[in-house]
């Protein structure tokens, strides 16, 4: 391909992807200038023809294109994704979850990618997983409830601490603090012996055994290593690198762990993404989640429909659900809202508030029997009289 031809491809008004495909196709092929012109013109023509036409009802097309394959989906699946034994909601329930913009998915999970240095080394990947997986105190030593002296004694197992790369002194410091802060239990005193790596907890009120057992329960289960919301981490090797799958999601704290590749790590909790990474990242996450949920069921929906839905959901700066509390419920027109759900309430409220309907949308005009602003209905013919 000649440099000037390359230049001409760059100047054509077609998407970047089309230009790249054209370059790739023409690379190394011998064509005459005439043939090149012909190819370029046909590509441009084809592109112009495939563009969506003005006044096309894209929303309805998207709704049908997602809705029909949706009827083919499994109604209820409790699927164990692969060998990772991590339970993830899939199929129709998951799709509904995405469209409803739930604050928390029913099975939050993360896929954590690691920096090359950690991702290629099994032991290092394991170390990162320990930084993330929430580990309660009882995993680090022996806990005995001494009923005679009314105290709970913990002897840390130094070998376990070494293996899990945490200093015994750090655990001794974290445990009482976390019981106060995270578990909101304050009626206790404690004594630490750093050398012997042991810690004694005593309830403030030593009259009742109930307090002792309550304290013992808090001490057993306090999270001393890892991120509180992440209950389980599974390390798996996929396409040559180690990837961590988690049960539970906390992307903000995970990003601060050393060795985590923040550019590729993702969670299925869309509202968390919108809070931590912003609305554009949430839009991308909606597209990715919807597409992979549909794809997993062997349903192929064109990405354009999903992109349209994601764009609508993220239009106002936060993720809005599709439904009466989101896009459909916040429409300007009374008739349009009334046509969707809870008709009488909307009409009544509108009457009380003296609302006016401008009749500018589609639904309103269908109801009153006027031409709608779609397709040929949007085209006004203006005729100039001769002279």
């Amino acid at each position: 391909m000649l440099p000037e031809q390359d230049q001409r491809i760059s100047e054509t008004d077609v998407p970047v992807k089309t230009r790249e495909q054209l370059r790739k196709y023409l690379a190394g092929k011998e064509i005459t200038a005439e043939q090149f012109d012909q190819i370029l013109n046909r590509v441009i023509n084809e592109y112009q023809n495939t563009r969506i036409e003005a006044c096309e009802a894209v929303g309805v097309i998207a709704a049908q294109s997602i809705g029909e394959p949706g009827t083919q989906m499994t109604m209820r699946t409790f699927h164990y994704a692969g060998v990772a034994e991590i339970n993830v909601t899939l199929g129709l329930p998951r799709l509904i979850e995405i469209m409803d913009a739930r604050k928390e998915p029913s099975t939050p999970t993360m896929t954590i990618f690691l920096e090359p240095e950690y991702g290629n080394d099994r032991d290092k990947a394991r170390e990162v997983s320990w930084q993330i997986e929430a580990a309660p105190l009882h995993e680090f030593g022996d806990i005995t409830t001494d009923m005679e002296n009314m105290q709970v004694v913990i002897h840390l197992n130094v070998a376990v601490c070494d293996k899990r790369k945490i200093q015994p002194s750090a655990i001794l410091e974290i445990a009482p603090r976390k019981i106060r802060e995270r578990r909101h239990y304050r009626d206790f005193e404690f004594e630490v012996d750093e050398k012997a790596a042991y810690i004694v907890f005593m309830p403030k009120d030593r009259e009742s055994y109930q307090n002792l057992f309550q304290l013992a329960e808090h001490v057993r289960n306090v999270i001393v290593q890892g991120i509180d919301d992440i209950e389980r981490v599974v390390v798996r090797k996929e396409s040559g690198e180690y990837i961590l799958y988690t049960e539970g999601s906390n992307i903000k704290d995970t990003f601060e762990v050393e060795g985590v590749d923040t550019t590729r790590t993702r969670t299925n909790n869309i509202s968390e993404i919108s809070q931590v990474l912003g609305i554009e990242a949430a839009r991308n996450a909606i597209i990715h989640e919807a597409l992979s949920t549909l794809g997993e069921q062997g349903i192929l929906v064109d990405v354009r429909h999903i992109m349209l839905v994601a764009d609508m959901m993220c239009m106002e700066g936060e993720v809005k659900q599709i439904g009466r509390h989101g896009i459909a419920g916040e429409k300007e027109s009374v008739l349009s809202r009334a046509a969707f759900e809870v008709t009488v309430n909307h009409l009544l409220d509108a009457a009380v508030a003296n609302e006016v309907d401008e009749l500018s949308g589609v639904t309103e005009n269908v109801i009153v029997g006027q031409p709608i602003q779609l397709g040929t209905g949007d085209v006004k013919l203006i005729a100039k009289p001769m002279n």
Partner: protein
Amino acid sequence: MVPDHQIMTEEEAAGLLSQYSISNEQLPKMYHDDPAVKTIGAKPGDVIRIIRNSHTAGRAESYRLVVRRPKK
């Protein structure tokens, strides 16, 4: 996961609005406390150009107006 965000100059924003003959209220919005907005230091009223990696076009530009988060 986060695409590139750039603050548009006033001339660029005015050019954009006249190209589509719309007012800036008609642009998609994003809140002033959005993490991506905070990173580039945009203020309410600024127009942000977002360069997305599109599934269909390869690279697509999109625009958002920075607005204050409405109080609940």
